[in-house]
């Protein structure tokens, strides 16, 4: 007996817009559901690019804060216990920075590709932009290689320098205090521990805040590139999703503005097969238009 293959998997699906606890709902067609699902996916990918970029920048700010505190403690030289407590925190901030930088760079292409599955040219362009940063900037290469070192050893900083110099400011000689943190080449080890080509071009000491400052520039360029590539997609998806949210609000009122999309299926005993939030993408208080480089 021939097996009859159904032209569509008989899930017997139903689609709804619902409130959080599903006491109110509006039915959707399958096409509308697909549209919303695609829109949500794109918005979430583009938001992820911004969130990850912010992650790197926030870790950088933490490094600067801790460096200021540690510098002040070293210039005081009094509170040994506090110094010893702060040193691992400083190292943690650097580790977090390096890891978050890798989270950003390793997924950037995938996120853009998810939004623009058919635009091979654009993806190539982004790949090239990333290659170019790698070719042009020692900081980019070094941070990239440092990721392996940091994941292996959990150490992102080897030395500090706390110095005072006498400088003339506004006609007066004053003592100026400076603080720097370094990665030392001698402590990195040999080529078996670190990418050999980069080790060869590494100076004796790499000053961390200058390194990361420069690296931030590279990431900013890549971020801006990715965001501008996806901006059209973003605006379209944003429009579609907000239209549905607005329809729901128009029907049930503003107190029910937290809208979800639900995919139910009989095949699962009337259970929920898929569910995702949509209001958070059209009414996002943690990302500003500026983050997403939007100009309406």
């Amino acid at each position: 007996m021939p097996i009859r293959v159904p032209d569509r998997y008989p899930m017997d699906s139903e689609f709804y817009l619902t409130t959080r606890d599903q006491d109110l709902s509006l039915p959707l067609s399958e096409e509308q559901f697909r549209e919303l699902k695609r829109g949500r996916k794109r918005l979430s990918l583009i938001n992820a690019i911004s969130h990850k970029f912010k992650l790197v920048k926030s870790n950088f700010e933490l490094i600067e804060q801790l460096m200021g505190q540690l510098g002040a403690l070293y210039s005081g030289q009094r509170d040994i216990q506090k110094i010893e407590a702060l040193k691992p925190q400083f190292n943690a901030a650097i580790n977090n920075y390096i890891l978050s930088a890798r989270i950003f760079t390793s997924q950037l292409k995938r996120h853009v590709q998810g939004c623009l599955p058919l635009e091979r040219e654009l993806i190539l362009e982004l790949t090239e932009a990333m290659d170019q940063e790698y070719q042009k900037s020692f900081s980019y290469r070094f941070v990239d290689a440092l990721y392996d070192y940091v994941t292996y050893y959990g150490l992102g900083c080897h030395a500090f320098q706390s110095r005072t110099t006498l400088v003339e400011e506004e006609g007066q000689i004053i003592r100026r205090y400076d603080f720097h943190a370094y990665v030392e080449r001698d402590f990195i080890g040999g080529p078996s521990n670190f990418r050999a080509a980069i080790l060869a071009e590494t100076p004796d000491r790499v000053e961390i805040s200058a390194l990361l400052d420069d690296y931030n520039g590279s990431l900013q360029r890549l971020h801006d590139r990715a965001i501008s590539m996806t901006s059209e997609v973003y605006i379209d998806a944003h429009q579609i999703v907000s239209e549905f949210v607005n329809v729901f609000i128009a029907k049930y009122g503003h107190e029910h503005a937290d809208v979800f999309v639900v995919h139910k299926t009989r095949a699962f005993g009337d259970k929920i097969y898929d569910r995702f939030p949509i209001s958070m993408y059209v009414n996002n208080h943690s990302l500003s238009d500026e983050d997403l480089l939007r100009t309406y």
Partner: protein
Amino acid sequence: MRITPPADTMAIPDDYESCDIVSINYRHFSVWLKSQVVETLKGVVTEVRFPWSQTVNADNYRTRLNRLPEYALEAMELLQSTVQTDTCRIISCEADKFCCTLALVAPLPQVVYQGLQSMPCPDLFAMPHMENLDKSAAEYVFAHRQRHQH
């Protein structure tokens, strides 16, 4: 990064600049006379190397070298008060975990030797080692800074 110093900042003597390097297995603290002053000094540079005493060594171990700058400045003050002639100045002081090295410039090396002989044996150090160098004060400080700064 420029630091706003806290109120209780460590007192580096006037006219001296300082650099403190803290690394994983070494620490290096140094102060030196600022270049405008050091360039005007003439005479013989004598380097005096004081190894840390057992007590200080033990304390350095316990405090993870965190009191090294304090000890170095103490040593400097001690030597300064011992050699109290206007013609004799300390041009640099550097400390690592093994010893504290002070460099003085004096018209004649004897001034330093005499001064040291009259000094009561300090608790901080074991027997010092002295050496006269064929260098001007400015050259010495320059070389000293080259060694440890980046």
